[in-house]
C-alpha cells in the first residue's frame, strides 16, 4: 500500500513530453527542503573537496598551487593527524560505552521510582540542556590544579596525596574531558532508555517472573532484548555526535597539553583558523566527513531495519 502511494504519479505515463522522468508527488513536496539542505551541505562539501587539492594558505595568497593529492599523502605521514585520529576514537569509544552503561543503570533505577518522585526524572536531564561551552568551563574549574574541587575531594578521600594538574597532564587531561562529556550526555541515554523501558509490556515481564526467572534473568532475557534496538541506534547517534564534539574539549584544554586531547575536529579547526592552512585542513575535513558518512549510513540502515 505504502509502495503504491509513493509511486503515485501526478499524471499517468512513465515519461513526460520532453522525455524527463515524472516525479512522484511526495518527492516534489520534499524537494524544496532537500534543495536547501543540499545547498548548505553539498556546496561546502564540494568546495572543500576542491580546496583539498590545492596548497592554499591564507597567509600566502600569492603562493596557491594545484597539488593534486599531496595534501592527502601528507596526511598519512602526519603524526599529529594520526594522534588526533586515535584521540577521537578513544574519546568517542570511552564516552559512548561508559555513558551507555551508566545511562542504562540510572534509567532502570528511575523506572523503579514511585510516582511521587517522578520529578527526579526531569532533574537528571539538566546536564543535557547545558551548552557544551558552559559544561567545558564548569569542568575546567572542577579540574583546576589550584582551586578545583576534584582535587579537594580526591585528597579528602585519600585517593591522591597532592593536587594533580588534571588539564596539564597528557593522560589525566583526556580523562577529564571524557568525564565532562559523559556527564553532559548521560541524560540523553537515560531519556531513551526510560522510554524503552516504558514500552516493555508488563505482562511479558510478569510472565518471566511467574515462570521462575530471577530479576537478573528477567533483565537479561526480557528487558535487554527489548532495549537492544534503542541501544544500537542511540550509541550510533552518540558516536556521530562525539566525533563532532568541539566545545567541551576546546574550552577545557584547547586540544592540549601538547596534542593529547586534540581530536580530528579540533585539529581541523587549528589548521584552518589558527594556522590558516585551508588546503590541508580541507583534506583532513574530507577524510573526517567520509568516516562520519560511513557511520551515518550504518545508522540509517539500522534505523530502517528497526522501522521495518
Amino acid at each position, binding site marked *: 500500500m505504502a509502495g503504491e502511494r509513493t509511486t503515485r504519479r501526478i499524471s499517468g505515463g512513465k515519461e513526460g513530453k520532453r522525455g524527463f*522522468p515524472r516525479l512522484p508527488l511526495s518527492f516534489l513536496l520534499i524537494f524544496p527542503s*532537500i534543495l536547501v539542505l543540499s545547498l548548505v551541505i553539498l556546496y561546502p562539501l*564540494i*568546495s572543500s573537496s576542491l580546496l583539498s587539492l590545492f596548497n592554499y594558505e591564507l597567509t600566502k595568497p600569492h603562493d596557491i598551487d594545484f597539488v593534486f593529492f599531496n595534501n592527502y599523502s601528507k596526511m598519512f605521514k602526519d603524526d599529529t593527524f594520526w594522534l588526533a585520529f586515535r584521540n577521537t576514537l578513544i574519546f568517542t569509544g570511552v564516552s559512548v560505552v561508559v555513558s551507555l552503561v551508566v545511562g542504562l543503570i540510572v534509567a532502570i533505577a528511575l523506572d523503579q521510582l514511585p510516582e511521587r518522585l517522578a520529578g527526579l526524572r526531569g532533574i537528571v536531564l539538566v546536564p543535557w540542556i547545558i551548552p557544551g561551552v558552559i559544561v567545558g568551563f564548569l569542568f575546567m574549574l572542577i579540574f583546576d590544579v*589550584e582551586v578545583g574541587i576534584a582535587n579537594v575531594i580526591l585528597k579528602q578521600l585519600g585517593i591522591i596525596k597532592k593536587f594533580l594538574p588534571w588539564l596539564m597532564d*597528557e593522560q589525566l587531561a583526556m580523562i577529564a574531558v571524557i568525564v565532562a562529556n559523559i556527564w553532559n550526555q548521560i541524560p540523553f541515554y537515560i531519556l531513551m532508555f526510560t522510554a524503552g523501558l516504558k514500552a516493555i509490556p508488563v505482562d511479558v515481564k510478569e510472565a518471566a517472573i511467574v515462570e521462575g526467572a530471577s530479576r537478573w534473568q528477567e533483565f537479561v532475557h526480557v528487558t535487554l532484548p527489548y532495549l537492544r534496538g534503542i541501544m544500537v541506534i542511540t550509541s550510533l547517534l552518540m558516536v556521530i555526535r562525539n566525533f563532532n564534539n568541539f566545545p567541551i574539549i576546546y574550552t577545557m584544554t584547547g586540544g592540549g597539553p*601538547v596534542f593529547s586531547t586534540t581530536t580530528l575536529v579540533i585539529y581541523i579547526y587549528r589548521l584552518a583558523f589558527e594556522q590558516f592552512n585551508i588546503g590541508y585542513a580541507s583534506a583532513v575535513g574530507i577524510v573526517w566527513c567520509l568516516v562520519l558518512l560511513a557511520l551515518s549510513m550504518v545508522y540509517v540502515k539500522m534505523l530502517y531495519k528497526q522501522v521495518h
Partner: protein
Amino acid sequence: MFRKKWAFVVAILLAVSLFMVACGQGGGASNQSSGSSSNQKVEITFVNWATAEEATKKQMLAVIEEFEKQNPNIKVKNVPIPVGEQLNQLTIMTTGGNAPDIAQVHFDVGISLAAMGALEPTDNLLSKDFLDDLNKKLYDFGMWEGKHYLIPWVGHPLGFWYNKKLLKEAGLDPNNPPQTMEELTKAMAVIKEKLPAEVVPLQIDTTIRTLGLSHEWSFMAAFGAIPIEGDKVQATKLEPFAEWLRMCVKKGYTLPGKKFGEFRPLAAQNRLVFGFDGPSFKGIIQSFDKSITDEKFYETWGVTTLPVGVDKKPYSAPDDHNLAIFKASKNKEAAVKFAEFLSRSDFAIKTYVIPLGFLPTVQSAVQRFPQEFSDPARKAYIEKVVPAVIRPPYGPNYAKIATVIMAGIQDVITTDKPIPEILKTVQMKLEGIVHGR
C-alpha cells in the same frame, strides 16, 4: 525507474552546487578605492579588544564618543572581540568580504594580516606630522616586505614586575630584585620554602598560542638562544631554557598551562611574586581590586627589566597595541583620522593611555604630559624596558612556528621525555616550516 529519478534529482543538485562553487571561486573582497567625501557622513567599523575587556572598556568608549563629537561626519561602529580571537575573527571577516575599516592588533596578528594582503600600507595614508612624531622603532616593528602596515597606538612591552611585600616576607631584599636568571631561580626557591603554598613565584605563559611564544621569547633569549634567528633554525639550542622551565614547573615555581593574563588575578590577591607583563599590569590589577590606590600599588610593586642570562643583556618582547587599516575599507581617510586621534590626541592620551598605565607611541606625548609619564613604573619602562625589546619572527608562518615550539614546550613541562629528543623533533618541524620542506 526510481533510481533514474534519483539520479535526475541528484544531478540537478550537483549542478546547482557546482555552479555556486564556481561562482564562489571568483568572489572575495574586492579592492575598494579609498577616500570619502568630507561632507558625507561615513561609518567606520572598529574591531578591538579594548571594549571587550572590563579594565579598558569605559575609557575606550569615552574616547570613541569624543572622536565622534569632534568629527560629526564620522560614526564609529564598535565591534568588541576578545584578544585571543582577533586573528581568526579578522581572518574570517576579511575572507568573507566583510573586513572592518580599522582594527586593534598585536604585531603578530597585524603582520599575518599584512602577509594575507588584507591590510593597506600606511606610509602614504598617515599625515607627515604624525609620521614624524611616531616612535620609529615601534613603527618599524610593523613592517612586512619593506612596507609599514601597522600604526603604533599604545606601548606595552613586557617588563619584570616584582612584589616587594612578598619578597620582604620571604626574607629577601624588596628593593633589590633578581638581576640574573641564577638569582631569580635562587629567589624562587627561597619563596617556595618560606611563603605559603598558595603563593606563585613566577608568571610565565606556557599555552600553545602565538602570545605564549611571544611571552617566552625574552626568557629564551636570556638563556642564550632564540629558536629562530633570520632563516636559521636553532631549536636544539633551547636546552638550557627547557631544563630551567621543566625545573620551574616540577618545583611549583609557576603554574603550567596558564595564559599570562590568568596570573593577574593572583597578583591582585597578593599571591604572585614575579610577573612578566606590560605597563597596563597596574591598571588591570587596580580594576580587579578597586581598593588598590596608586600609592598602595607602588608600595607593593616595582618594575625593571627581565633578569639577564649568559650574555648579560636584558630582553623584552613587544606586546604593543597597533592599529591596522584594511585594504577593503571604503573609508580609509576616516579610519586614518580615527587612528591618529587614538594615538596622538590629548583626549585619548589623557583618557586612555595615562590612566590605564600604557606607554605613548608618539614622542610628543611625554613633552605634553611630563608629570603623568614620570611615575616610577613608566619611567622604568621608558628608560630600561623599551630599549631591551626584541622582535620575534612575525610573518605568515608565525602561527605555525608558535604551535610547534609551544607544543614542544608543553612536552617538556608535562612529560619526563629527554629534552634533546623533544627539541630535535621541534627543530625538524621548524626547518620544514621555515625552509618549506
